[in-house]
């Protein structure tokens, strides 16, 4: 492992996750990018490459649209990569287990994000009040506060999820019977096909709709 500290990993993960909404949307939050980077940071880039590829394919059309928030796939891919590289690097069955275990954490992260957006309403009212008093600096301060809030909420999430989920993952994986381990390994190699199917369908439908002008 290049970075052993959960705190540093959580901080980097929080910055990556902020890209999803808070700043830039440069797509560093997409699994195809963040999972290999975390694979590299935790000592096994190949693990990250496969994890990123699979999560990206499965949720290829998952982007926050308006008030719709899909499960946080950035969190899913980062957590699964870190757990596997920390406890059972190079084992496909472990990767599959980690991915499945990371999904509920992805939903939890989404809910935390939603909660943060509700807090932003209060900041928005504070800004509006400031405008009424001709204190326009509040707009800049509010944007800064919103950005800090994004990073802080994700940082706290990762700080809790990396060790807690890792502990659960370790416990679960060690108690999986042998036949299920073989099953998980096969499932791991079948996951990309599920993603390819969804992507083919999405492109086909999209092309058809656009071409027909619908």
């Amino acid at each position, binding site marked *: 492992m290049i970075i052993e500290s959960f705190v540093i990993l959580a901080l980097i993960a929080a910055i990556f996750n902020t890209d999803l909404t*808070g*700043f830039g*949307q440069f797509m560093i939050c*997409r699994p*195809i*990018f963040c999972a*290999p*980077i975390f694979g*590299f940071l935790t000592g096994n*880039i*190949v693990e990250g*490459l496969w994890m990123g590829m699979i999560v*990206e394919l*499965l949720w290829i*059309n998952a*982007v926050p649209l*308006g*008030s719709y928030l899909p499960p946080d796939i950035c969190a899913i891919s980062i957590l699964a990569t870190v757990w596997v590289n920390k406890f059972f690097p190079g084992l496909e069955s472990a990767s599959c287990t980690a991915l*499945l275990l990371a*999904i509920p954490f992805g939903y939890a992260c989404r809910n935390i994000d939603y909660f943060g*957006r509700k807090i*932003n*309403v209060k*900041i*928005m009212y504070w*800004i509006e009040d400031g*405008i*009424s008093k*001709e204190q*326009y600096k509040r*707009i800049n301060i*509010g*944007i800064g506060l*919103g*950005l800090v809030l*994004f990073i802080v909420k994700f940082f706290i999430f990762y700080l809790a999820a990396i060790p807690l989920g890792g502990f659960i993952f370790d416990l679960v994986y060690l108690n999986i019977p042998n*036949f*299920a381990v*073989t*099953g*998980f390994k*096969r*499932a791991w190699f*079948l*996951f*990309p*096909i*599920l*993603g*390819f*199917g*969804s*992507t*083919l*369908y*999405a*492109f086909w439908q*999209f092309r058809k709709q*656009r*071409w027909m002008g619908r």
Partner: protein
Amino acid sequence: MLKDYMKAYARVFFVQSLWNTERQQNVGLLFLIKPFLEKMYTDPKIRKEAFLRHTEFFNTHPYMTGIIAAFVVKTETEIAKGNTDLISTMSQMKRSMASPLAAIGDSLFSDTLRTAIALISILLTIVFSLIEPDNLAEFGILFPFIFLVLFNLFHIIGKYIFMLTAFALGQEVLLTLAKPSFRLAIVVIAVLGFLTTLLATAAYFIFIDANSLLGIGDLRNILIFASVLVLSLFFAKKYINLKLIITVLICILWGYLER
């Protein structure tokens, strides 16, 4: 003026920093147009009114916000010159631009361009794993960066061009974006993405088969591969978690029967 445009362009990246559940990107838009409004209005009372006008609900695709911001700045310039009739229509115009621009942004960036570039990166990863499996750890870091650089080339330049065009053309920029040539470009990207996915699927099958990763013979490999692909096509974009669970359960059952 170019300095102001650049300032506004830099602010486009922060447009969702205070995304809130009630009025969504309203503060982001205010942050974007703030330097212009401060310059335009010297009378404190009128300036305050101008700022308050834009605290209302606002939301569009984050990559397209620059276009609406440019439209708002152009309209506010007219209002500052005395054309106060525009005040009553601005809100409606903003809303009527936001939805089509969000749809264009989704079609161009989220549904096609990003997906197609991600697929190119995935295809390269699979092909490299087939040809040079021992060097994947060494050169693997290149593939995510191919995705990032390629996508942001379009994203960063596209955002800039969209915004500058909107500053020049105003609301007419929508007509430019609705042109058949623009729509055709999106379809071409979608077709390329579709073909890349087909290639990636084929490359992945060769990868699975060549390494006997399912631990079974050729014909059964094809059968399993095809079955999962059909399952996925059948459920398509829905029930992702269910698809995963079904696949895992079938594989566990398969392992159990093989004991």
